[in-house]
């Protein structure tokens, strides 16, 4: 015993010394800018899309032009997989030395990344940029936090109603013009063709459910004086939640299957011919075209409450931003402008079908490609955006809204209680985010 104690003491001291020498506190990175060099290599991370070649071509053309007009500047583009983007970008914030100068990022992440201290404030440059004047206001909102701009919109994505023309013809019905008609049509189809979901909905499909809430005048959250309060349990929001959750049931989409579905699962169900209608984005077009329903479907804007109105859609999409830690700020901002400029976006639309964020470029695109017409219509009818609070990322990641929908459709809680609980969780997140 004595001996082991005699040994244990120095060993413990050694271990303690080692610990104090290596690290007392967990690591914190310094993401502040390292100067502003006018030459050198700029590193860019863009998302790797399904079928990425056309995107690469457009980007390469923009990069070539940039390198020609900027003597001594070189650009290195890396395409990162969408699935692991969150980890990659977090890692970039944690290790500024190996971080890129520019990143593409999903627009719902803007506020979170700003709070993390990862993105550079480019308000001045964005304001002085002539092309930015035509930026769609909702797209501009998606790069703005507390009145400051943290990047440039790259493209927008909105969702609309895909429906099967052959099924509708068969049953002698027209595309629904109001939300009530949408719900009754869905149930009618399921009654006539029980092996089809009338409208494929998902308990985890937050962005497909939001238009229902917004169409009834509900809001996810309201802002006053910089702090957000959840609006998910307001009277209006609850009406929207009721409308959406009424689509889960044996008369349309049985909760045993549909409660767990997310957006992709509903689009897959439609593309494989298991659903007569689905809420899909302009970006889902390729997936549907590749499915069994090719040539047998059409798209209309998702109807709102009043007959002939359009339900406000969620304005998704990606932005390109400059990292705070860049050592080439001026160059990086110039490259951001050329990657998100009108010319590149117009070419990107032709190559990938990504909707441009400039109103005039978008109009031109709609003239060229008729399939985007319903999406453009939806955008111009007024799309909406999630609260630009850093708490949103956390609310999204902790599945607050999917949990609420799933609690309702599985019969665990009624709309009032589920929405109160969701509001409580959202408010806690808003409060924690400050």
């Amino acid at each position, binding site marked *: 015993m004595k*001996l*082991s104690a005699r*040994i244990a003491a120095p*060993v413990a001291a050694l*271990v303690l010394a*080692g*610990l104090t020498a*290596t*690290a007392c*506190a*967990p*690591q*914190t*990175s*310094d*993401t*502040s800018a390292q100067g502003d060099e006018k030459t050198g290599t700029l590193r860019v991370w863009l998302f790797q899309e399904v079928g990425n070649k056309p995107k690469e071509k457009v980007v390469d053309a923009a990069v070539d032009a940039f390198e020609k007009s900027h003597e001594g500047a070189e650009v290195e583009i890396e395409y990162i997989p969408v699935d692991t983007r969150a980890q990659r970008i*977090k890692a970039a*914030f*944690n290790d500024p030395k190996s971080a890129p100068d520019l990143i593409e990022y999903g627009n719902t992440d803007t506020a*979170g990344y*700003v*709070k*993390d*201290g*990862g993105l550079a404030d480019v308000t001045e440059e964005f304001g002085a940029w002539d092309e930015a004047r035509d930026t769609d206001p909702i797209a501009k909102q998606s790069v703005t936090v507390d009145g400051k701009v943290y990047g440039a919109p790259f493209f927008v994505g909105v969702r609309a109603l895909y429906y099967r023309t052959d099924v509708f013809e068969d049953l002698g019905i027209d595309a629904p013009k109001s939300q009530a008609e949408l719900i009754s049509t869905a149930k009618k189809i399921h009654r006539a063709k029980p092996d089809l979901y009338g409208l494929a909905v998902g*308990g*985890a499909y937050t962005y497909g459910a939001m238009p229902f809430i917004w169409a009834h005048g509900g809001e996810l959250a309201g802002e006053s004086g910089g702090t957000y309060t959840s609006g998910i349990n307001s009277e209006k929001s609850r009406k929207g939640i009721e409308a959406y959750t009424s689509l889960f049931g044996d008369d349309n989409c049985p*909760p*045993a*299957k549909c*409660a*767990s579905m997310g957006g992709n699962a509903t689009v897959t169900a439609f593309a494989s011919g298991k659903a007569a209608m689905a809420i899909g984005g302009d970006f889902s077009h390729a997936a549907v075209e590749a499915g069994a329903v090719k040539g047998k479907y059409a798209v209309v804007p998702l109807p709102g409450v009043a007959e002939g109105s359009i339900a406000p859609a969620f304005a998704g999409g990606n932005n390109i931003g400059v990292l705070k830690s860049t050592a080439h700020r001026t160059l990086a901002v110039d490259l951001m402008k050329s990657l998100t400029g009108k010319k590149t976006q117009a070419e990107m639309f032709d190559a990938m079908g990504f909707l441009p964020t400039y109103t005039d470029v978008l109009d031109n695109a709609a003239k060229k490609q008729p399939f985007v017409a319903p999406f453009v219509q939806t955008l111009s009818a007024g799309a909406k955006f999630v609260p630009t609070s*850093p708490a949103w*990322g*956390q609310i999204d*990641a*902790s*599945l607050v809204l*999917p*949990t609420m929908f*799933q*609690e309702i459709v*599985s019969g*665990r809680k009624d709309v009032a209680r589920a929405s109160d609980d969701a509001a409580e969780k959202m408010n806690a997140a808003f409060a924690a985010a400050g």
Partner: protein
Amino acid sequence: MTTHTTPYKPPAAGAPPKGGAPAVRRPRRGRSVSPARRSGWTPWLYLLPALVLLAGLLVYPIYQLGLISFLEYTQAQVSGGEPTTFKGFGNYTALFNDSQFWQVLLATVVFAASCVLATLFVGCALAVLLTRIRALPRLALMMAALGAWATPAITGSTVWVFLFDPDFGPVNKVLGLGDFSWTYGRYSAFALVLLEVLWCSFPFVMVTVYAGIRAIPTEVLEAASLDGASQWRIWRAITAPMLRPILVVVTIQSIIWDFKVFTQIYVMTNGGGIAGQNLVLNVYAYQKAFASSQYSLGSAIGVVMLVILLAVTLVYLRLVRRQGEEL
């Protein structure tokens, strides 16, 4: 693991009837190395590399885990957007005031306990079966078990989900369940995951217990039966006590594994099931720590898990010890 195999080695080593030789040598060595000091130092010297490794790989991470759990440490602090601040027990109070945490904890304990019992029962039963069957069926059973053991958890879970798929799964077709969705109900989802956990963890129990049974010297068993002991008495007085160290290891391993189940729940119930009904502590910690970047809260959950597992293991070890003295 290796330390636990030693208890049943002595009978084998002591079996050769050369007991006299070491007995003669031992005192001689004792005399030549006069101070007891040296023999006290040497074990520590031999242990040093392992201790250093353990300190680096085990103590240091646990120390960091504990430290982070007392701080406000989210992505904003990691990447330098905001300064790191000391929160005291703030993360723990937040955790203990979260009603979901208690639900998840209860679900985890019940789920892990059922998994451990099921695994031990199936593993031991099949180990006994292995000793009673011929070579060919034994080989087949061994291969099947090793196959299940070698399958990565992600692959196994994905295959199981497919097998039980309401639309395309063969299981529902064979059982005539129509389009019954296993993952929709809370208990059927847990049952499905339990089956998968059982499938991939019984081989460890089976192989270990089987090895243990084979290591029991047949002479002892023969002697007992010659003395007229019944099968039950042989099991109680010979087999079970000789297997005890193995059963202890296997039980503790199972408790630790099943308490920390992550992949199966995450893959099979899509990250915790409908409205989070199938969350277990590890998936819950992942959601808090990584998905929503609240590293400090996730660390607090980790510390709580560590304490629970240590407590369970210690209590279990004491129980086994006491039983051993009584026997």
